[in-house]
């Protein structure tokens, strides 16, 4: 597995990809610093939480970065026709998918986790409860989005378009306006976890219970990981 993991790290460590990831991940931090400079030491109000944490971090920055990285983990190999190097090796398919997932999480996850941690620490003036809650919610979103987009990279050559539609329509539009969609929204899982770990965050929203979110998040992770493994077993490898 380590060979595939190291290969994935090198494939995803292109200079431009890392630079764009760094710039996008830095946006919430920069916004947090500006907010702190303007607002002083006050606890961020709901409007800031909705705009910066919900819409920007959980609704745009995390899904877009994970989309760019996780889809590339497989789709680049499919386009370059190098995936056969892996599938023609005597290793089970899960030993290809899991290191690809871990490689994608390493590249995208580090930037995004540091971004969430730094943003929340700055904005909440070092309040560790809020900082840990926001970082934990972000980590859950990073893992789930990465798993879904990894599968999408194997499913279609138009995985970026698929991902953008998913992010902006499903997560952005429907999950915010259709109550039932929240049961199937990664963004909403993240926001709910943040709220459950620190009830000062997103205090006015309708949230799922902790048990439902943990169960649903675990299900999404397992189902999409299994779908990716199954897809790699059944697809025609170019």
């Amino acid at each position, binding site marked *: 597995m380590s*060979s*595939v993991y190291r290969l994935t790290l090198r494939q995803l460590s292109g200079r431009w990809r890392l630079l764009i990831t760094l710039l996008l991940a830095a946006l919430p931090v920069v916004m947090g610093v500006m907010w702190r400079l303007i607002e002083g030491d006050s606890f961020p109000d709901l409007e800031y939480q909705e705009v910066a944490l919900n819409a920007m971090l959980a609704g745009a920055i995390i899904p877009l970065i994970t989309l760019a990285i996780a889809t590339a983990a497989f789709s680049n190999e499919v386009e*370059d026709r190098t995936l*056969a190097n*892996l599938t023609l*090796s*005597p290793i089970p398919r899960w030993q290809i998918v899991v290191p690809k997932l871990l490689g994608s999480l390493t590249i995208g996850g580090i930037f995004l986790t540091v971004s969430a941690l730094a943003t929340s620490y700055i904005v909440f003036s070092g309040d560790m409860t809020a900082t840990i809650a926001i970082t934990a919610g972000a980590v859950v979103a990073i893992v789930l989005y990465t798993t879904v987009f990894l599968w999408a990279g194997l499913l279609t050559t138009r995985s970026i378009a698929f991902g953008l539609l998913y992010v902006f329509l499903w997560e952005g539009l429907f999950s915010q306006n259709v109550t039932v969609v929240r049961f199937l929204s990664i963004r909403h899982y993240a926001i709910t976890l943040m709220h459950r770990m620190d009830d000062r965050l997103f205090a006015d929203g309708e949230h799922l219970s902790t048990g439902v979110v943990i169960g649903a998040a675990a299900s999404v992770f397992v189902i999409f990981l299994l779908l990716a493994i199954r897809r790699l077993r059944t697809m025609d490898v170019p």
Partner: protein
Amino acid sequence: MNLSTNSTEPVIRVENVSRWFGSVVSVSDVSFDIKPGITGLLGPNGAGKTTLLRMITGLAEVSDGSITMFGEPVRNNSHLYRRIGVMSEHETVYEFMKGREFVKMMGRLKDVSNLDSAVDRAISLVDLADAAHRPMGTYSRGMRQRMRLAATLVHDPEILILDEPLNGADPRQRVHFQNLLKQLASEGRTIVLSSHILEEVEQIAETVLLIVNGKLAASGDFHAIRAALDERPYHIRVISDSPRELASEIVKLESVDAVNVDPDGAIVVLSRNVRDLQIELPRLAQKKSVRVRRVEPLDDSLESVFGYLVER
């Protein structure tokens, strides 16, 4: 290395295999056995060779039929890949990776013991030790092919499946490659090699599978197929100053089956012995003081050669 495979038993068995993409049939009801030695899979571009090889290696699903290696199904049978080396026709490589790193990674994926010595051996087999520490992005097309072959050989496979492996190779590399394959085959390996170039396969393959339009058009000993090709009549077009006068002389030649003069004045000769025609035509033209401006084969394309064999 001498492999213990019984040479009378087929190593690869393809039974009634078909593959279709929507309404397009790419491979149609193909059956054959492959035994140790070098087998050439020959056919024009688009004949279905690559699809067939991809199904044999388990990269693609068969729509119908079955394929086995050593008596086992290949698809989703990953442990078989310890015994198989596959080199696809695509020349893409991990450009950021050095040649030796690539071969080593492939060896690690194939669970090779004594990895470093296996990597050195594979790279020396393809004669690329000097370039092994350069990124593959800097390699020529031929060098990439050779380093990919080294990666295919690193685990010392019993079966080698090579799709158009001589693409991009210069004449010296071709000779080296052909000698290498002969050596590997003499050690008891089973090698399947695809090509759309008849002469390329002729020089190394003992057995030929001829694929045309997704069907197995001919199979067996290469020399028998080659003999059939030698009997094939050729159409040759001759442009001259005085076509009727020249045609009347050409038709008298024993090697000529028929002569027609087109409305545009070109002579079309049907001959089973082109060499004889090559010798006689200038002599006849000189005898009749006719100026020959152009001589061209009308059906020398590979497709027409395959078409002839299919029609027989």
